[in-house]
């Protein structure tokens, strides 16, 4: 018993907070400062300057576009956003029409790419047998690296002629929906095949194929991170596979779905070459997506940079700045959503 008593005493002694050390005048916590070695100082400087250069490049893009575009913006003022015409030589120019065209093409692209990308991402992450999975992932990633000019070629030489009957069919049966109508200036329905070429619809399909791989891989990554325990829980409660996907995978991957869609939207807004090759440029707002003629900000820049005067170039810079800001906002929102939806990326080996 004495041994046990001694043990208890020791225990209480251990549990007691230790006596604070006697405070002497002027004593402070020791500052944990070390002098970095010469190599470390160089390394820090180099790393900081690399980060600084990256930031500087980005800021320089905005800076130069603003400086160069300021000339045109000060002349045009607010009418820059409301004018549809583009003739800087006569000082009447604005991005209303090209911006509307950009948005139309991007929306058409989203209508095709989002369902296809979501379906493909779910298919790859949930349904396909594991031995095909890595093949499909590589294939989709490879397609994201295919140059945009290749998609443009396909759109120009294959899709253009083959999609016209489809466009005619849609406008024939669904012409009562204003977006699908193809009418002339007097409101008369147009049925001539030449009225259906080079439309925002065709450009949108091509852009959809270009952005779908990116969207697919963002969404697939989000879906595949859905927790295994919850999946198994849903299946163990008697859910079917689609029930499991609907109740576990999709709610978990919703951030990735939204983020992937917006990343694709950002790319669709900025796409140049494929759109340039397909559309026939017009400078009026055309909401009839199946009808010939559309435009986009980037196609406008590619179209007019060569023949422009100094002031015309300034106007193009202003248009580029507007595009830059729009895509920046969209992509920044997207990457925030994606980053927030992801669980911690820390690893411990």
């Amino acid at each position, binding site marked *: 018993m004495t041994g046990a008593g001694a043990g208890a005493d020791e225990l209480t002694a251990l549990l007691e907070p230790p006596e604070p050390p006697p405070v002497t005048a002027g004593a402070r916590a020791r500052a944990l400062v070390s002098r*970095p070695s010469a*190599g*470390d100082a*160089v*390394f*820090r400087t180099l*790393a*900081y300057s*690399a*980060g600084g250069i*990256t930031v500087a*490049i*980005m800021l*320089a*893009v905005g800076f*130069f576009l603003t*400086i*160069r575009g300021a000339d045109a913006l000060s002349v045009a003022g607010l009418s820059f956003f409301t004018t549809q015409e583009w003739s800087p030589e006569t000082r009447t120019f604005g991005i209303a029409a090209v911006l509307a065209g950009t948005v139309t093409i991007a929306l058409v692209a989203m209508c095709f790419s989002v369902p*296809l990308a979501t*379906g*493909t991402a*779910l*298919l790859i992450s949930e*349904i396909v047998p594991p031995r095909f999975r890595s093949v499909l992932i590589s*294939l*989709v990633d490879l*397609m994201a*690296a*295919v*140059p*945009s*000019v*290749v998609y443009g*070629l*396909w759109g120009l*030489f294959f899709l253009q002629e083959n999609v016209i009957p*489809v466009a005619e*069919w849609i406008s024939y049966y669904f012409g009562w929906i204003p977006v699908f109508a193809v009418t002339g200036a007097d409101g008369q329905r147009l049925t001539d095949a030449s009225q259906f070429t080079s439309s925002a619809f065709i450009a949108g399909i091509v852009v959809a*194929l270009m952005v*779908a791989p990116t969207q*697919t891989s963002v969404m697939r990554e989000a879906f595949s991170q859905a927790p295994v325990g919850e999946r198994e829980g849903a299946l163990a409660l008697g*859910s079917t*596979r*689609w*029930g499991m996907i609907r109740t576990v995978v999709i709610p978990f991957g919703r951030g990735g779905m939204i983020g992937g869609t917006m990343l694709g939207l950002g790319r669709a807004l*900025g796409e*140049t*070459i494929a759109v340039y*090759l397909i559309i026939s440029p017009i400078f009026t707002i055309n909401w009839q997506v199946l009808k010939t003629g559309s435009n986009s900000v*980037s196609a406008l*820049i*590619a179209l007019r*940079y060569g023949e422009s005067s100094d002031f015309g170039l300034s106007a193009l810079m202003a248009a580029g700045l507007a*595009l830059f800001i729009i*895509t920046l906002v969209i992509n*920044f929102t997207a*990457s925030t959503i994606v980053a927030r939806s992801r669980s911690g990326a820390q*690893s*411990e*080996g």
Partner: protein
Amino acid sequence: MTPDETLTTVLAADAVAPDAPTRPALDGWSRPVAPRTFRPQPGDDPIGPPRRIRGAAAEDAFNVVGALGAAAAVATLLFGWFTPMTGAVGWAVVTYLSFVVIYALLVALRADAQEVADRVMTALLYSAGAILIAALVFVVCFAVFRGFPALVNLNSFVQTMASAGPLDPLSVGGIAHAIVGTLIQISIALAITVPLGIATAVFMNEIGGRFARFVRTISDAMTALPSIVAGLFVYSAVIQLITHERSGFAASLAITVMMLPIVIRAADVVLRLVPANLREASYALGSSRWRTVWHVVLPTSRSGLVTAVILGTARGIGETSPVLLTSGVTAYLNVNPFSGPMISLPLQVFDFVKSPEPTMIARGFGAAATLILLVLLLFIVARIIGGKGPGQLSDRQRRARVARSHDDLRRIEARHRVPAPADDSAPASASAAPSAPKDPQ
């Protein structure tokens, strides 16, 4: 009593005794006493055939095939006989829609609503994947197929367009100047991007802090940069301000602006995967920060970094619109990136297909096929090198590492063995004793 029986009795007593009498008192219901724990002996139950948990049952296959046939029949009836609808695409759409409906009905004959939803959604997901992947593969195959006539003329790869006009056949002229231009431009872009991009990623991971978070935000935002805006930027900042002429160097700067964020982001992800305890081990051994980065972090993630660079290259090599504004179109071979226009493959494709001449368009497809094959090659190289996390070694690398480790061991042993035979005096042998116990003392 065998140990098993004791256990069962104790467990049963524990489980039943305390609450069996109290239960009826609580809610007035008398419940049967909980059954005793039953442990099946191996061999009690006959083992049936293993249940198939993968693959489709024959009935599912029948449902799919039957629904497809019925849908095709319905569409044909609608298009050929009952309604004035025409067109192959409309037929396909009607077939697909009626397939979905008929398939749902067929499944519903034998299953409940949840199962129907499961089957129909699976069919929809399969068709979405099939449409997208088939379309993507078709786009690439279309370009390669149409480019074939130009590619079989081997002069495409050695001649330039300087000697060939729009009306010349494919056996004259080629895209050698564009291939050379592409390689020069991408080399310059890589020379800037690789050090800068990897250093930025190292900065974000190894130094951190508020500025690093800001850099990460900015480089994320840079991936959003529309390619034509990158071209405009270089045009206004470099061409208008400094050089006053289009050049290959300006084009590679524009490509750099496009590639940099891709490389930074990919390298960032790879560096983040390096286990923290490797770094800690290095610091605990007393190495400085840059030695840790140089000798531990970067070698560990080497394969991932190479993949990041190659993926960035594949994207940079195919950029058209930044090059459109900055490099200029030429038919001549120009190997000097600092003066005169220098064309690259994507720009050459763009330039060719704007021509109305069929031979020029064929040349355009040939250049596009070359570009695709180049990207494909890079991608395959990236897959071979990369795709592995940091520290995951191939068999060859593992053998090399084992061999190096043995070398180290031999070196260390040799260093310790040298003084022992040279000096056989007492202090030397005492110091050598722990490491050489077989010393004949």
